[in-house]
Structure formats: C-alpha cells, structure tokens
C-alpha cells in the first residue's frame, strides 16, 4: 500500500510520526512523510499527487479536533472518497468519537504496538479489495478498536 504520514498544524513533535513511518515501511509499505507544519490543503494535495491508499495524521498539540475533520472534509470535496484516514498522538478517549464520525477509521494512542498498526493496514487492504466501506467518503460504521 502507499501511505502518507502527515503532521498537520503547528505541532513540532514528529518522533512518533517518524517511528510509525518506519514501522509501516518495515511492514512492506511505501510511506511518504510530509515533514512538519503542513496545512490541511497541503496534505490533501500530497494525497492526490502521490495517489496513496491511506493517510495517517499525527497530532500531539491538541489541535486534532479541528484539523483532522477539516482534512477529511477536504478529501471528500476533492473526490478522494476511497482514501482511508487514521490518526495518532495525544488524543483523549472521549474526543475520539467525533473523529470517527468525521470519517476516520482508527485512532492510535501512546503505547500502540507497531504490529497493531501493520495489522490495521493489512485489514484495510483486505476490506478495500473486498469492496467494503473503509474510505473517508464511503460511509459505514466500521472502525478499528485500538488497544491504546
């Protein structure tokens, strides 16, 4: 799978994003890292130009509640309904449902095992092939229940 790992907003901490990028690389995927401080528009442009299957968003600054749904909206407006969006970082449990409602399929918190992320991508790949609704604009209520 081709995957973009992105850092939206002003958050300057990308250790986690780089570890995830590396883990997904080791799981056999082609991972494009955007670098720090990207706008939602820039991230959507990267998703389009690189024609990726998944987009992973990392935020540790508390801006996820605004930025993540905004990116999901822009993806749908750009006709990228089949792109699967997941997130990670410091995202309190009670703030996750609105993100799922905005079209995200998984949220990974601190302590997530690398293997779990790889399993998630694997599952998404299978569901996509089977024609199940997993993309950001495909509806359905499937989400990945994360251990962390």
């Amino acid at each position: 799978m081709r995957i973009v790992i992105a850092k939206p907003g002003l958050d300057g901490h990308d250790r986690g994003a780089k570890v995830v990028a590396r883990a997904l690389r080791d799981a056999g995927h082609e991972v494009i890292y955007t670098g720090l401080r990207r706008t939602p528009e820039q991230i959507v442009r990267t998703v389009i130009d690189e024609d990726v299957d998944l987009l992973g968003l990392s935020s540790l600054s508390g801006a996820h509640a605004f930025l993540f749904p905004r990116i999901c909206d822009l993806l749908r407006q750009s006709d990228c309904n089949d792109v699967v969006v997941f997130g990670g970082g410091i995202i309190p449990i009670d703030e996750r449902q609105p993100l799922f409602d905005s079209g995200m399929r998984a949220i990974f918190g601190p302590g997530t095992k690398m293997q779990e992320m790889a399993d998630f991508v694997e599952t998404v790949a299978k569901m996509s092939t089977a024609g199940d609704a997993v993309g950001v604009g495909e509806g359905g209520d499937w989400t990945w229940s994360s251990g962390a």
Partner: protein
Amino acid sequence: MADNLLSLAQSGDRRSLAKLLTAVENDEVSHASLEIPVRQSDGTVIGVTGAPGVGKSTLIEQLLAKWTDDGLCVGVLAVDPSSPLSGGALLGDRVRMDSADDNDSVFVRSIATRNHPGGLPTTVGLAADVMRICGYDLVIIETVGAGQSEIRIVSVADRILLVESPGRGDEIQAEKAGVMELADLIVVNKSDLDGADRAAAQIISALELSDSAPLVILTSSKSGEGILELAKQLLNLPVRAGAELARARERLLTAWDADLLSRKDINEVLESISKGQFTAQEWVKSKRG
C-alpha cells in the same frame, strides 16, 4: 480507462495524472497502450544525481522556485530506495521541496525503486514522458543517493546534473571515472561551507584532460549563490559528445533487466539460487543455450 485518464491528465486534472502515474509505476500501461510516442532526447528531462546528503532535493526546490517564477511547469520524479528485505520504502524527498505542496506549476511524485537493478525503476522513462505530454515543460528525475558507478540514469534523462559537496575530500579524486564522465553539468553545492572552492578546483582539474569537460558551478541553497546561473545553464546544455555509447549501453541493460524481472518464474529462480540449487551464473548459462 487509461485513455480517459490520459486525456483528463492532459487537460490539467492532477488526480488523473496521479492515477496514470500509478498505472505506469505498476507496469499496467506502456507507450503503445497509451498511444504516445517514445520521446526523443531534447534536453527537457534532466537527471539529478549525486551521493546521499549532498543536497539534491534542496537544490531541486531552488530550481523549482526559479523556473516556475519564469512561467515554466515542472514535474519531479523523486526516487528513493525500497527495502531489499521488506519491500517497503520511506519516501522523504518531498520534505525538502516546499513547492511540491502548494505550487500549481509543480507536480512531485515520489517513486520507490522496488528493487529494480541500478537503483532506477524501468518505468521512470515512461513516467517522464507522460509528465511531458501532460503539460510539464521540464521533468527532473532525482536519483537515489548514488555513488560513482550508478549511471543507469543516463538511460532515461537527456541531460545529467551531478551534485557534489565539499568535505568529501579524497573521494572526489577517486570518483573521476564513472558518473562524472557522463555528467553534462557538475555543481559543487553547499558553497557556503569551507573547502567548496577547493573541491571545485579538484573536479575541474580532474576533468581538464577530457575532450568536452562539463561546466562546473558552485551553488548554495542557503545563500542562493549560483542558483540563477544553474537554472539558466540547465536549460541550455549542449549534447555532450562521447556519451552516446554509454547511454545506449544503459538503455540496453535497462531493457534486459526489465525483461528478466518480468519472467513468470522469477520467484522460483530466485528461491532456487538462494537455496544453492544452482548458481546465478549457471542459470544464466542454461538460458543462453
């Protein structure tokens, strides 16, 4: 479907161009199936090569800014290595190219080598041709960080820019043979660092005796030195004499490799060789008959 994508991509739809490039990368389309001619060398596809860390991506960003200011549209194919073990790749060239994310005259596509030999996927030539036919005036191919003998890039690029940097001292002498002989232009980047003048002087003296020595320019992405000169010279490079045979050789090897790797039984062959059932040489000999 690819036909439709091509016409949409030609009308400027980025998503269609992106999808088409995916089809190219996955070897699902060809010049013939897309009904586009194989492009003749005209100086518009420029290969940028050099060792890891010499500043290729950052230098390309400087060129993108300059050329798009001048009204040109520029495509970039940024190649990074795939893991020989997992097959995965971390593609990070975009990080240093700000134009990639918001300049409408720029289209950057990251490409993994997918373990094609020579560090250059065989599909890159078609990808460059597709970008050219979709309205991009220039296409830059950034190679994986390459050493002295990785010259596969000459099989697809019309002109070669070799990027060097100071502080690689004695290695420069050792690199006289190889890619340096095929470069159409050499830059010594990071000219703001100590030793840049000396590195440039060494390169010039190493190439002095050849018939058509390439131009050597000092550049710095930090101070901007030499960038305008480089942007101008790259558009006016003459064809370098003497490199035609080397180009033809690399094209032949590329075609040969592609043919070999697309064999249906390639995985079984690899497995047998790795298990020691026969050696690679024995297998090649048996095929030659």
